[in-house]
Every structure is written in C-alpha cells, then in structure tokens.
C-alpha cells in the first residue's frame, strides 16, 4: 500500500520534470506542424483571393476580399470541373466496391480453406506486389488499347480492381477469426457463400473500412494510370485533368488555388472521419514485413 503511494508520487514528480523538459520539444513540434500546414492553409486561403490580390507584392497570407464564389464560378466555366469530379468518383467507386468484393473473397479463401497449390498461388499473388508499375506500364497500355478500352471507364477500372495488397490485408483479418464460427454455421446448414457474406465479412468490418478508404484515396490521387488510359478531355480525372490545366495556364493563379483546394476537400473529409483507418492501414503495411 505504502509502496504504491510512493510510486505514484515519484511518477507525478517525473511528469512535472518531464513537462518542463518537454517544453522546447513541444514548441519545436508546433513550429514543425505550422510549417507543414502553412502551404495547405495558404492554398485554401488563396481560393478566397482575387487575381489582383494574388499578384500583389508582398504576398499576403490572409485574404482581404472574398472572391470564393467568383473563383468557383470561373473554375466551373473554364474547366469542366464537374465532369472531372464525376469521372474521378466513377473511377474511385468503380475500382473500390468490386475490388473490396473480389479481394475479400480471395483473402477469405486463402485464410480459411485448405486446397492444393495454396502456397504456390499465394506466393504468386504476393509476387505481383513486387512488380514495379512502370515495368508493366507499356504492355498494360497496349492491352487496354487493343481491347478498345482506351478512354473508357472499363480501361480505367478493370485492370485496377484486383490488388494483392488488399487480398493480403483481408487474409490477415480473416485469419484472426475463431474457427468455431464457421463450423457452427455449417452445422446449421448454411451455404458456404452465406457463411462468407453474412457471418465472416461483417466480422472484419474494420479491415474492410480500411480497404475502402485507402482504395478510394489511392484512386482519387492516382496520376500515372489516368494519364495513360484516359487522356481524352471528357474522360480525364481530377488528377490528370488538373495537371493538364495547371500546365496550360499557369497565369490564372486564383483558379489554380481554387481547383487544388476543391479537389483535396473530399479526401480531407474522408481523413477527418476515418483517420484511425488510414493510420491502421499504414501500420499494418509496416508490420507485415
């Protein structure tokens, strides 16, 4: 009892001492955070500024006027922003939802079934993670070209649906579930697919949310693949569309500010609500090594 008391006291002493020692570090972390956020905040604030305000010297951090509505109107009229957004949403959702299904299904089979050639197949799947994209970039482009899928959603989506990385993530999640669950369901006479769909899949919800968010984020930010297969003006996604737009008219700065801000907003919302899943996804990818 007494020992416990002494211990708490010493711990709180340590805490106070650490608190003082920690202050310089804390200030450093704050400065670091500010330098990190400053460009993003300045960009957001830039979308409120008029062109003349942006061009003023010295540059100001905070906007004076509020030209957000005007900037928005110009973004919408000068690039087909709504169409770019629509394409990006179709690409992201079209990739992610079927991807979650086929990858979870494969991960489930690898986690819960015994079958011939399982290890060889799994290694083969893992090996696809090792192939750098630029090695298969040209053949994949030709494949899509000769399928007649260039500048179609098929070409953009189908090659990106299956991913060994998500299969791996789902497999790990399924491996953590107790065996009794499926046995009980099997004894109750449930069909195999029912066991997967109604019992097992809902149990790995956190992993599925992680896959969902990371996959949406990957597609939303993907640059190289849309650059290759959907370069026609009406098929561009936000990534390659804005890259072109910025390249074409570097002088319309407030438009650049606005477009960049708006294209990031949906991801920001996803991040704010699903932060722990983003973090979990990164953490698992680190542990698997």
């Amino acid at each position: 009892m007494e020992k416990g008391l002494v211990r708490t006291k010493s711990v709180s002493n340590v805490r106070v001492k650490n608190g003082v020692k920690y202050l310089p570090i804390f200030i450093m972390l704050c400065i670091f955070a500010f330098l990190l956020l400053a460009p993003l905040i300045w960009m957001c604030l830039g979308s409120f500024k008029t062109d003349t305000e942006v061009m003023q010297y010295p540059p100001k951090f905070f906007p004076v006027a509020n030209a957000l509505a005007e900037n928005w109107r110009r973004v919408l009229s000068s690039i087909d922003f709504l169409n770019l957004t629509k394409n990006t949403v179709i690409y992201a959702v079209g990739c992610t939802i079927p991807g979650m299904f086929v990858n979870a299904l494969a991960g489930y089979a690898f986690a819960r079934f015994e079958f011939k050639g399982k290890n060889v197949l799994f290694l083969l799947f893992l090996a696809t993670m090792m192939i750098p994209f630029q090695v298969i970039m040209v053949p994949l482009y030709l494949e899509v070209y000769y399928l007649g899928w260039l500048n179609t959603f098929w070409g953009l989506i189908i090659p990106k649906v299956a991913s060994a990385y998500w299969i791996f993530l789902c497999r790990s999640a399924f491996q953590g579930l107790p065996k009794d669950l499926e046995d009980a369901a099997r004894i109750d006479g449930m069909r195999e697919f029912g066991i997967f769909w109604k019992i097992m899949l809902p149990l790995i919800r956190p992993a599925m949310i992680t896959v969902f968010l990371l996959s949406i984020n990957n597609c939303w930010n993907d640059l190289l693949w849309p650059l290759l297969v959907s370069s026609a003006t009406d098929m561009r996604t936000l990534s390659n569309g804005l890259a072109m737009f910025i390249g074409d008219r570097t002088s319309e700065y407030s438009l650049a500010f606005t477009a960049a801000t708006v294209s990031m907003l949906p991801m920001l919302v996803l991040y704010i609500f699903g932060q722990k899943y983003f973090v979990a996804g990164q953490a698992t990818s680190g542990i698997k090594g």
Partner: protein
Amino acid sequence: MSATGKKKSISLEQRRQRTAYLYIAPAGILLIVFCLIPLLASFYISTQKMGVDLSKAKFVGLDNYTKIFTDRRFLQSVTITLKYTLVEIPLQMVIGVVLSALLAKNTPWNKLFRSIYFLPVIASAVTVGVTWQLVLHSNIGIFTYWLKLLGFSDVNLLNNTGTALYVVVFVAIWKTFGISTIILVSAIQNIPESLYEASAIDGAGKINQFFYVTLPGIMPSFWFLLMTRIIGSLQMFDIVYTLTRGGPSRTTTTLVVYIYDTAFNSLDKMGYATAMSEVLFVFIMIITVIMYAIMNKTSDD
C-alpha cells in the same frame, strides 16, 4: 456404410476445394491478365523496336539493352534518381525515427501532432505539386517572400538548376514522412513496457533507453520501411511530374519520368522504354534481396 461415409467426406472435401478455387478465381484471373501477362509481355516488348502499332514492330534482339548503357540521358536520369534517393532516404528515416520517438505516447497532443503530420499523405500529387509551385513561386510565393525576409536574395528555388532537385526531395519528404512516423510509432508501441521498466531500474535515462530499448525494438519495422522507401524513391514519378515536369534543363528528370517520356512521347520507343524499366526492375530486385537478407539477419540476432 463406412465406405459411403468416407466417399461422402471426400466429396465434401472436394466441394470445399472447388469453393476455394471459385473464390480465388475473380481476383486471380484479373491479376494474371493485368499483371502477370503484362510482365511476361514486357520481356518480349523489350526486344522490339515498336510503338503502339504492333504491325510495325521489329525484332531487334538485345539492341535496346546495349543501347541503354550508351544513352547519355539514361545515365543522367539514373544519376539524378540515385542522388535523389541518397538525399531523401537518410533525411526521411532520421525525421521518422526522431518524431516517432517523441510522439509514441498516446497523449492528446501527440495524437493531434500525428494526425497533422499525416495530413499531406492523403493529398494528391497534383494538389501537392500545384501548392508548392505556388508557395515557391518566384513572385507570388509566400515561402519565397518569407525566405527573402530572412535575408535570402534571388529566391527562385524551382527554376534554379542547382536547387530544383532538392526542392523535389523536400516536398517528397513533406508529403510522406507522416507514413514513416506512423509506422515507427506503432512499432514503438509494440515494444513491451517491461523492457523500459527494466532499463529504468538499471538506471538508464531517456536517451539511453532510446538507444538501447527503442532503436533495437523498432529494427524490423525500420528495415522494412527503409526497403519500401528506397524502392519508392527509385520509382519517383508523381511529384516530379506535377512540380517540375523534369525541369529545369532536365535536372529533375528521374529515371521513371524519362521512361514515361520515352514510351509515350515518341513514336517507336516503347520497346526501348520497357527495356529501361526491366533494368530498373532488376535493380529493385537486387535491393529487395539484399534488404531481406539484412532483415533476416537482424531478426535472428
């Protein structure tokens, strides 16, 4: 009776096998068609002089490969990529290790810092490229202005052949160090508390604990992170493309940017570009094998 029972159980087993294959099939077929077949095709393509029009493809044997090593632009882009990697990796890893050690405890402030530091990770390369182009713009850029206030003159970092690559390094670290920090934080959190308590009893201070408990404890994650970061650096494309497009005067044209330009901005060099990417592939494989060997050795110790 027992024979029929056995027969039935075999067919159940077979049914489960069939189910497993059925479940793997969709993802498997997609991976074969859009990953493994392109990989095999890439070896063939690398022996061709060809563009998009396959009927005009011409077999050139290993000419593409021999040409690579006399291609000045290839050697230049390899040098740039290596320089980029050699600067980026140590900085990235040091920042990651230090920040993760400082932020490992789950206090509210630490959580806040971690989520702020992770924020650029979710931004697209285009957003990042545009933002930094504007932030570092020679006239309107806010950082340019701040640097001038600090006494630097003629700040034009992105258009200066001497500094552009370092700007790319800086922006790449800015965008990705949140990942390193998060991965190492979770590695530190997995170190048993008892190790820290034991070392505290032995009289180890915070600094000693960092070197004798934390660092050895995070080594497996550290090596894994180092490997993925090196592989990522060698494949640098997005940020260069959106920030500098390889300029000024090609000083930021990394290997993958050069491969991309060669394949898609000229008519008959797809084979040549693919040959270059095979060379990169082999290089990445060698690094992976070496890193795995080191990783296995450190985890044996």
